């Protein structure tokens, strides 16, 4: 087994629990520490990808382009990656990110909608970037269908495709089956991005690795949406224990997680009752804070909102449905109260 390439996404996925309030200074501190600990790729963007700063998802405190430049400036070795969701961000933001030094782009679509990404892969290759597909909410479709979508992305120019467990709803067997199916369908790398809502972020990452994943995502201190992602420092420790030469410095990562990142964090994401519900109902991890807010606003249990969103088959990025569901539930509750 070969060591996978690790991408740290605490400066992108971690933007969700940070409520998109990262500052230039924080990004410089964290990017430098990750670079020094040997992390080869660092993702920096609004949590919902380039152009995500909005009422729908939350406004960025600092424009993401400034954060990308800040990360680029302090990294000696690491590549800077950005996330792009077609329909949210556009080719304009991708051009600007490349101009500021991003050399990797992860182009994310719902796991059934790969064909909205063709023009973005085209531009990424034109800009000379490494372009990876990101099939979100991958638990919602069987492995064969995901493999077809991955092959489509490869036909557009993707250098590799990730299985993205956006809901943290998979068990290790689900991760294994999906990574295997993609391995058989594409020539490029297969990657895996985990969330920890059911407590399987690390276990699923290991299963993906054993099934042949060549790229794995982590977030320092697990800082990501919902109950967070596979902690990068734990991935590093795991790779050491497997005897794989990852190039990561486990202790440096532990120090950065504890001494640099933890003091910046408003809370430690863990699989608590709402986050477990997200994994259980199979909804987008970023719904967590939005559902809590709607719960407070309408006097509802966030769990009821999340379960209903799962029943309605809400997809990635559909934060606006939370208000809709909360209104409906509040109306139904009022009708029941005598």
């Amino acid at each position, binding site marked *: 087994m070969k060591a996978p390439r690790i991408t740290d996404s605490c400066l992108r996925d971690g933007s969700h629990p940070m409520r998109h309030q990262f500052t230039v200074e924080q990004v410089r501190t964290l990017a430098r520490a990750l670079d020094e600990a040997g992390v080869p790729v660092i993702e920096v963007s609004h949590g919902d990808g380039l*152009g995500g700063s*909005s*009422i*729908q998802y*939350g*406004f*960025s*405190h600092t424009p993401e382009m400034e954060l990308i430049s800040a990360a680029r400036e302090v990294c000696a070795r690491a590549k800077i990656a950005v996330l792009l969701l*077609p*329909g*949210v961000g*556009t*080719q*304009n933001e991708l051009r600007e990110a490349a101009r500021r030094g991003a050399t990797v782009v992860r182009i994310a679509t*719902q796991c*059934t*909608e790969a*064909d*909205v990404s*063709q*023009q973005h892969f085209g531009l990424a290759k034109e800009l000379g970037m490494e372009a990876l597909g990101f099939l979100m909410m991958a638990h919602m479709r069987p492995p064969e269908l995901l493999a077809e979508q991955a092959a489509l992305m490869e036909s557009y120019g993707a250098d590799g495709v990730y299985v993205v467990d956006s809901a943290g709803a998979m068990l290790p067997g689900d991760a294994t089956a999906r990574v295997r199916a993609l391995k058989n369908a594409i020539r490029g790398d297969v990657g895996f991005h985990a969330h920890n809502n059911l407590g399987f972020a690390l276990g699923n990452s290991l299963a993906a690795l054993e099934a042949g994943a060549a790229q794995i995502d982590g977030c320092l201190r697990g800082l990501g949406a919902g109950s967070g992602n596979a902690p990068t420092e734990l991935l590093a420790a795991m790779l050491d224990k497997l005897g794989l030469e990852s190039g990561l410095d486990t202790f440096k990562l532990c120090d950065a997680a504890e001494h640099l990142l933890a003091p910046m964090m408003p809370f430690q994401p863990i699989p608590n009752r709402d986050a477990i519900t997200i994994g259980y109902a199979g909804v987008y991890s970023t719904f967590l804070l939005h559902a809590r807010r709607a719960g407070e606003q309408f006097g509802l249990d966030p769990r009821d909102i999340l379960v209903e969103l799962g029943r*309605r*088959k*809400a*997809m*990635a*990025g*559909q934060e*606006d*449905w939370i*208000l*809709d569901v909360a*209104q409906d539930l509040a*109306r139904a509750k009022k009708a029941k109260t005598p």
Partner: protein
Amino acid sequence: MPTPRIKAAILGSGNIGSDLMFKLLRDPGALELSLFAGIDPASDGLARARAHGIATSDRGIAAILEDRDIKIVFDATSAKAHARHAAALAAAGKIAIDLTPAARGPYVVPPANLREHLDASNVNLITCGGQATIPLVHAVGRVTPVAYAEIVSTVASRSAGPGTRQNIDEFTFTTARGLEVIGGAKAAKALIILNPAEPPIMMRNTIYVLPAGDFDEAAVTQSLEHMTAEVQRYVPGYRLKGAPVFDSIRTPAGPRRTITLLLEVTGAGDYLPAYAGNLDIMTASACRVAQVFAERLLASAA
């Protein structure tokens, strides 16, 4: 004596063209559909039109240009094709109603700005998200200045065709521009999400409006109600879910009051399925625009 009518043609024999045909057959108003033109002799659309007794041609725009009596042409082809068609139609003195993203003529949203473009020879329908959301942003804007408008259109995967998918950025740019130019927002942003759920979901739009200053909630609500009723005249399945939500959010410039609107658009189901409200609102708006032009042509001829 039969009622005088203006002759119209549909260019493009796909789903949009077919839905336009059924709308004109159901409710011709001041229009007479005299030709349905495509370029594929074997297309289902042309066969369907023939079965309904409509004259058809597989020679595309050439057949339309040959008929001097055709005054209004719906272009339901593609942006690339319309770029060619626009000049030819203008030279022939025909009014073009452009349902592609080509946008050679001004953007129109019937209840917001059609009156300003009654002399135009080519008008563009923007995007489905634009037709759905711009009227409501405009309705807020006529009561209080709008600093920022943001919309999220969620459509069923099955109702998003290859044109939309291959150029999804076009939706984002064009809709945002329409929200600014016609909606009156100083800045705007548009997001689109495809949802693959089965059975397919109805077209849903969330509209966030951030007024520039303080505003009268009752006046905003009333203006929105009037506008909704006006759109319902040509899109019966257009409805606001619940009352407007007045809230406050954190922005980079400090806390700001917002208005959030949840809009559902159910299609009329003329040819396209009811869930495809995004496509229906395009064809319904196009028909509404054509009726207004036709009535004007009849009045000037009388």
